[in-house]
C-alpha cells in the first residue's frame, strides 16, 4: 500500500501546493499567451518612487504637498463659510437683542464656539480628498514598502505603516485596520503606536494656532506637527518592541497594487465617507457641547456672570485652574487647561471651547486674542500636547476593544500624557531659547 510519505515526501503540504501549481501551469499553457510588453508604466514609476535613496524623501515631499494643498486651498472655503455664519449670527443677534442671556448663548456659545469650528471642516475635507487620492492611486501600499526598511531596523513591522497612514484621517478605523497585521505582538505594537498619528480632528487646532502665531509658515508648522506625530508613533513602536513585545517582526509580504489614476468621483466619494463622520459629530456632539460649554463658562458658583465677564471665575475657569499649575511651566493658563480637559471628548473641542471662552470675554477675533495672551512657544507646546496626549474618548474605547485589555488601554493613556508633556516641555524650552517665549513676539 502506498503511503503519503512515498508520494509526497516529508512535507506533504508544500508538495501538495507544488502539485496545485503544476496543474495551474498545465491549464494556463492552453489558456494563456503572454506577449512581452517591456516595462509597464507602473514598473517605471516604481523604479523612482521605491528607490532606495529617493523613497523616503519622496514620501515626505508628498505628505508636505498634501498639507500645503489642504491649507492653501481651504482658505477660500473657510472664508465663505465664515462670512455666511457671520451674516446668520448678526441676524440672530438683532433678533435677541432684548435678552442678554439668550443673546450670549446664541452669539458666544453657538456662534462663538459651534459655528467657529465649522470653517475648519474645509481643511479637513480637503486633506481627506488628498489622502483618498494618494490611497486610490496605489501609493499607500508603496509608502509602507518604502518605510519598511527604516521600520525593520527598529524592529517594527512594515505593515504597521498602513494603519498609520489611515490615522491621518481618523485613528479609530486605523486602529481597527491593525487586524490585518499577522502576529499578535506586531498587532499590539501597531495598535498602541497609532494614537500619536495626527488625525483630522487635531487639524483645526493647528490651523487656528499656526495662523495666529506663525503667519506665513502655516503649512510648514502643520507639516512638522504631522511629522512629529509620525516620529513619536515610530519611537513608541520601537520602545514597545524593545520592552514588552520582544522578538522579531514577522516577514513583510505585501503585493504592490498597480498605479491607477483615481477618478474624481471615487476620490470625492471617499473624502465624503470619511468627512461625513466629522459633519455628524459637529451636528450632534459639538453642538450640544457648545451649549454645555457656554453654561459652564457664562456661569460660576456666583451665578450668571453678565456681559464680558472675567471667565476665570466661571465653572470652566475653575476646572481649567485645577490642572493649570501642572502646565504653568509651559505658559498655559486656565483657558488652555480647560481646553485640554474638554478636548478629551474630541480634539476639535479644544478650538470650540477656546472660541466660547474668548467670545464670552468679548473677544471676537480669537486669533488676535490668542496672540495677546500666549507666546509662540506656549502655542507650539499646546499644539504638541493636543497632538500627543490621550486620543479622544472614542479612540480609547477602540483601543480597549481591539487590545481586549484594560491594562494596555490604561498604559496607552498614561504613557501618552507623559510623552506629550515631555515633548511639549522640550519644544517650549527650545523655542524660548531662541526668543519665541515672549507674548506678542513671533
Amino acid at each position, binding site marked *: *500500500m*502506498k*503511503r*503519503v*510519505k512515498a*508520494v*509526497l515526501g516529508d512535507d*506533504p*503540504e508544500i508538495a*501538495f*501546493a507544488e*502539485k*496545485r*501549481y503544476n*496543474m*495551474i*501551469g498545465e*491549464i*494556463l499553457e*492552453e*489558456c*494563456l*499567451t*503572454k*506577449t*512581452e*510588453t517591456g516595462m*509597464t508604466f507602473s514598473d517605471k514609476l516604481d523604479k523612482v518612487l521605491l528607490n532606495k535613496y529617493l523613497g523616503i524623501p519622496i514620501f515626505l515631499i508628498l505628505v508636505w504637498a498634501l498639507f500645503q494643498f489642504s491649507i492653501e486651498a481651504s482658505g477660500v472655503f473657510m472664508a465663505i463659510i465664515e462670512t455666511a455664519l457671520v451674516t446668520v449670527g448678526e441676524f440672530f443677534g438683532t433678533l435677541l437683542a432684548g435678552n442678554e442671556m439668550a443673546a450670549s448663548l446664541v452669539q458666544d456659545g453657538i456662534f462663538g464656539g459651534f459655528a467657529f469650528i465649522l470653517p475648519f471642516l474645509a481643511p479637513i475635507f480637503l486633506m481627506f480628498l488628498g489622502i483618498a487620492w494618494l*490611497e*486610490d*492611486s*496605489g501609493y*499607500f*501600499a508603496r509608502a*509602507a514598502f518604502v518605510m519598511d526598511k527604516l521600520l525593520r531596523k527598529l524592529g517594527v513591522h512594515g505593515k504597521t505603516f*498602513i494603519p498609520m497612514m489611515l490615522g491621518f484621517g481618523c485613528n479609530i478605523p486605523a486602529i*481597527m*485596520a491593525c*487586524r*490585518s497585521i*499577522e502576529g499578535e505582538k506586531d498587532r499590539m505594537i501597531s495598535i498602541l503606536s497609532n494614537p500619536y498619528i495626527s488625525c483630522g480632528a487635531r487639524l483645526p487646532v493647528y490651523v487656528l494656532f499656526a495662523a495666529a502665531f506663525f503667519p506665513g509658515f502655516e503649512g510648514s508648522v502643520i507639516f512638522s506637527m504631522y511629522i512629529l506625530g509620525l516620529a513619536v508613533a515610530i519611537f513608541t513602536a520601537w520602545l514597545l518592541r524593545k520592552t514588552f513585545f520582544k522578538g522579531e517582526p514577522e516577514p513583510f509580504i*505585501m*503585493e504592490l*497594487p*498597480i498605479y*491607477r489614476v*483615481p477618478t474624481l468621483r*471615487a476620490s470625492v*466619494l*471617499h473624502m465624503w*465617507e470619511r468627512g461625513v463622520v466629522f459633519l455628524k459629530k459637529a451636528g450632534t456632539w459639538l453642538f450640544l457641547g457648545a451649549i454645555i460649554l457656554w453654561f459652564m463658562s457664562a456661569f460660576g458658583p456666583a451665578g450668571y456672570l453678565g456681559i464680558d465677564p472675567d471667565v476665570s471665575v466661571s465653572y470652566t475657569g475653575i476646572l481649567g485652574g485645577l490642572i493649570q499649575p501642572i502646565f504653568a511651566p509651559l505658559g498655559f493658563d486656565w483657558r488652555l487647561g480647560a481646553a485640554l480637559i474638554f478636548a478629551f471628548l474630541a480634539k476639535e473641542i479644544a478650538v470650540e471651547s477656546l472660541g466660547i471662552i474668548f467670545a464670552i470675554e468679548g473677544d471676537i477675533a480669537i486669533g488676535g486674542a490668542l496672540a495677546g495672551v500666549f507666546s509662540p512657544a506656549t502655542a507650539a507646546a499646546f499644539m504638541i500636547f493636543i497632538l500627543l496626549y490621550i486620543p479622544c474618548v472614542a479612540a480609547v474605547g477602540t483601543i480597549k476593544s481591539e487590545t481586549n485589555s484594560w491594562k494596555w488601554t490604561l498604559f496607552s493613556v498614561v504613557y501618552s500624557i507623559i510623552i506629550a508633556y515631555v515633548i511639549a516641555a522640550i519644544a517650549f524650552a527650545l523655542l524660548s531659547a531662541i526668543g519665541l517665549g515672549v507674548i506678542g513676539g513671533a
Partner: protein
Amino acid sequence: MTVRVALIGNPNVGKSVIFNNLVPGARQHVGNWPGKTVEKKTGKYRYNGEEYELVDLPGCYSLTARAVDELVSRTYILEEKPDVVVNIVDASNVERNLYLTLLLMELEANIVVALNQMDVAKSKGYTIRTEKLASRLGIPVVETIATQKVGMEMLKKAIENAAKSPKPAFLTYPSDIEDLIEKLVTILSVDASLVTHHPARWLAIKLIERDKEVLEMIQGTALDSKIEEVFA
C-alpha cells in the same frame, strides 16, 4: 427565497468594486491596497425578480487554518454553504490567483469565476482564452473590468444560472495523489456525520496536508488509527 452569494478572491483584486457594482446604493469604501476588507460585509440586490444576498469575504491567498481571515472565509463556505461562490480572479495575475480557485474547487463549492482586471491583463500583453479556461476548470468564467462596470450583467446572469442549476466543482489530481485521497475517503466515509458536514475528498486532502483544524476533528475518533496507517 434569497440566493446567498459569497465573494472571495486574493487581496486587492477588486472584490469591493464588484460588491459596489452589484449592490445598488452600496458605497463600500474601496482602497487600492491589499487587506482592506477586514470583516465580511453583506448587501442585497435583485435580478430577474430574484433576491440575492452578497457576502464580501476578506481577501486571502489560500485557505489554511493558520491565518484568521483565511479561516473565516473557509469556515463560512463550509458551514454557511452559500448557494454560489463568486471567485474574483485577477486576470493580470492568473497563475497565483488560480491557486485559490483550486482550493475552492476542493471545497466542492458552486463556483463562478469573475476574471477581473481584463484591461490590466491586456496592457501586460496577456491573452486569455476564457472559454478554454472555463472548460478546463469545469466552472463558468466571466470576463469583467469592475472599475468600468464591464461584464456586470454577464456576471449576474452567470450567478443566476449557477444558482438555478448548482454544480459543485470537482478537481481531479494526478493518479498517485488520487489513490491516497481515495483510500482516506473510504476510511472517512465510515463516520457519517463527518462526511455529511464536510466534503469527504476535501477532508482527505486536508489530512494529507496535516491541516491543524481537520486533524483536531479526527483526533480521538475511531478513525484515527486507520488514518495514521495511510501516513506512517
